[in-house]
């Protein structure tokens, strides 16, 4: 029913603690299926929201869709994998200590931030004044470059690998037959914490005010003394850090990471972009809402309708939203003046 590998640890398989009493002997009840789907939806929705935030921030500032964003997620996932494996190799021991996770996360975020900063300076900055479609093609080029360079044997290689399990699998508590494990809590929790930090950053700090100013009107913001170049670079870096966190959470949850040029990554990025559009592209809160919406749609569609068409549901929603309400849920419609 659910396509993502859920419990595929390579070392050992743990059995979830079953509740002692279940009112449903045999088969899952409808409530349980609903709760399970809801849990999956929230998990994947928080991932989509993190990635969608990167898209929406870059679009808000530069009015261009950063096609290469999904590749930063891949980068984050692979860097987390390599770092975690390396750290565990150095520190020794079978199971990861609790401090390994945050360290890996920070390393991944910093590395992706640095790479994204370089990309922005080298590839996007010369095109600030170019027609938007030129920048779009450049973004496609950057995306291809990142994918294929990542696939070189010197970097990540072309075969899927698994990360060492950073957290235990035990169920912390269960609602009915639905087990909520440490991985789930940490995953959604980290995403929520990062989103709260971003919300604080964008709406309650001076830098955030600068970002919003640049997104409203770049030239006048520059006239008001906002260092536009630095703000744009910072936006890219922030988006990349969130994407890296998304990649790390993906690695945490799904363990097996496919090669960088695999289509599943681009699909993930596309769905996150759909989430950004649905919430209102350019709108930070909209991206969070959109991520949740897409997660709900995908998981409930897969569970209750047909799991093989779940991509079609998401793209179908995109087309419907673009036709009916292109400004998204929280966006404001801009009337084009002639």
């Amino acid at each position, binding site marked *: 029913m659910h396509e993502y590998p859920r419990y595929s640890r390579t070392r050992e398989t743990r059995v979830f603690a079953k509740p002692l009493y279940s009112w449903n002997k045999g088969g899952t009840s409808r409530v349980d299926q609903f709760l399970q789907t809801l849990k999956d939806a929230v998990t994947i929705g928080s991932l989509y929201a993190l990635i969608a935030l990167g898209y929406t921030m870059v679009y808000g500032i530069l009015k261009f*869709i950063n096609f290469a964003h999904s590749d930063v997620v891949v980068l984050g996932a692979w860097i987390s994998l390599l770092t975690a494996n390396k750290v565990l190799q150095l520190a020794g021991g079978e199971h990861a200590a609790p401090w390994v996770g945050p360290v890996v996360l920070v390393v991944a975020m910093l590395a992706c931030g640095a790479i994204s900063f370089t990309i922005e300076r080298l590839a996007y900055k010369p095109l600030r004044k*170019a*027609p938007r479609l030129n920048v*779009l093609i450049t973004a*496609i*080029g950057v995306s291809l470059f990142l994918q294929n360079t990542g696939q070189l044997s010197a970097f990540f290689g072309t075969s899927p690998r698994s990360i060492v399990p950073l957290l235990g699998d035990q169920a912390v508590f269960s609602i009915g037959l639905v087990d909520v494990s440490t991985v789930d809590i940490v995953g959604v929790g980290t995403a929520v914490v990062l989103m709260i930090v971003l919300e604080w950053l964008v709406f309650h700090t001076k830098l955030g005010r600068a970002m919003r100013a640049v997104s409203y009107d770049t030239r006048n913001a520059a006239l008001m003394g906002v260092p536009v170049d630095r703000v744009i670079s910072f936006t890219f870096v922030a988006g990349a850090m969130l994407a890296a966190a998304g990649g790390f959470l993906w690695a945490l949850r799904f363990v097996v990471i496919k090669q960088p040029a695999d289509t599943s990554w681009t699909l993930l990025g596309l769905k996150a972009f759909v989430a950004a559009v649905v919430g209102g592209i350019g709108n930070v809160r909209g991206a969070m809402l959109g991520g949740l919406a897409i997660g709900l749609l995908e998981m409930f569609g897969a569970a209750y309708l047909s799991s*093989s068409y779940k*991509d079609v549901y998401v*793209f179908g929603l*995109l087309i419907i939203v673009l036709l009916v309400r292109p400004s998204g849920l929280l966006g404001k419609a801009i009337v084009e003046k002639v």
Partner: protein
Amino acid sequence: MSSLSQSANRLSPGFAKATLGGLWPIALGITLAACLQVFIKPHIDAYYALIALNIGVNIVLAVSLNIVNGFTGQFSIGHAGFLAVGGYAAGAVTYYGSICLFGSADVHGGLLSGMPMDTEGLAFLGSGDALFLVALIVGGLVAALAGLLVGLPSLRLRGDYLAIVTLGFGEIVRVLLQQTDTLIKRSVGSETAEQFAQRVRDTPWWQLPKSVGGALGFTDLPKYTSLFWVYALVAVMLIVAFRLKESSYGRAFLSIREDEIAAESMGVNTTRYKVWAFVIAAFFAGMAGGLFAHQLGTSLSPVNAGFQKSFDIIIMVVLGGLGSISGATLAAIILTIIPEWLRGVELQTSTIFVLIGLTLLAVGVLKVYRARAIAKKTGIEDRSARRRAIGPALGLILISQYFFRGHLPAALQTTINLGEYRMILYALILIIMMIARPKGLFGVRELWNIGPWAKKARVASQNAGGIVPTQGGAA
């Protein structure tokens, strides 16, 4: 007075003359393609024939995408979806039609379809060829229908959003194709050909288009594609594209590209022309897909509808220059030949550094000269001279390391097979081109607009600094 009526008659010829006048280039093209197949193909190696087939298919794909991206300025990156839809439709007609009509899914064509010369009862075109032609046209029409479906949402979408919707369309096509049923194949050993043909004839008609192979791809297609079919389509495509560009439709497309709002206020029905662009491009892409499917018989699979193939086509169009038919053709030829050529090329790392160094040196020196010329002309002092010297200096350093190549660290002394790095090279070419020369090879101009004929074209190309002007005006 009589000369006036004579010239009036000349300007508006009768029906027969107009039709013949319009059709002779197409007839010429098809005849040339037939000559290619009959006289030249037997003398060339099969490998080169395959490359020529690929070149032809890529030309049609690139020029058809150019109609949407280049003439009309809409950014469509799901072109491979049309390719796949057309290929699958044509394949279904050929495969099941061949079984129902001829009893088996082999090639029943004639000389022009690549049958060897010593087959008995050989004609130029066999009965299978008629089926193949019908299949191609059906493929084109089905793809045109898909183009209509994609073109309709484009009414309300601009630029980036349309790009995403077309990308999503390609993915939807891929997913839907993966969900189709498996191909109805003959169980070898337990079923004779007649029994199998009867079984296919007995299946309900709506089941046949659903059984096109699913995720395994559409295999076992008869190999009808030959140089004749491909280059006949290339001839038709080029003539149609050229005539389209010069016609009133073409002018409408170009006006939509330049400034959609101005075009709308001048009375151009942008909706209608944008949808037409998609439909025409999709039709030809579908026919190219049909040719692609029957080339090796096994190459059609849902992954061909994905963005990887779409990007291949986009790179060709962008490299050639959006809006230029000859540019797209040339770029398609170059970008089909280069990967094949690169596959056999093995270079030492130090040689690659030398090449990079030479490029940096050449570009850097050119830039320095140009800056000096501008400084002399305008009288303004050139302050970035030092920064500009970094490029050539780095180039010289890289070139000089060639003489020390024996002493480089071991990691840098490897031989690199360039074929593996093809996609990275493509990506770098795309990025560098967008920064340095976004117009591509030809820009908006055609091959015949350069050089002595460039006078008329200079005005047209001045506005084409980029691909689509920003909303504020020309780039």
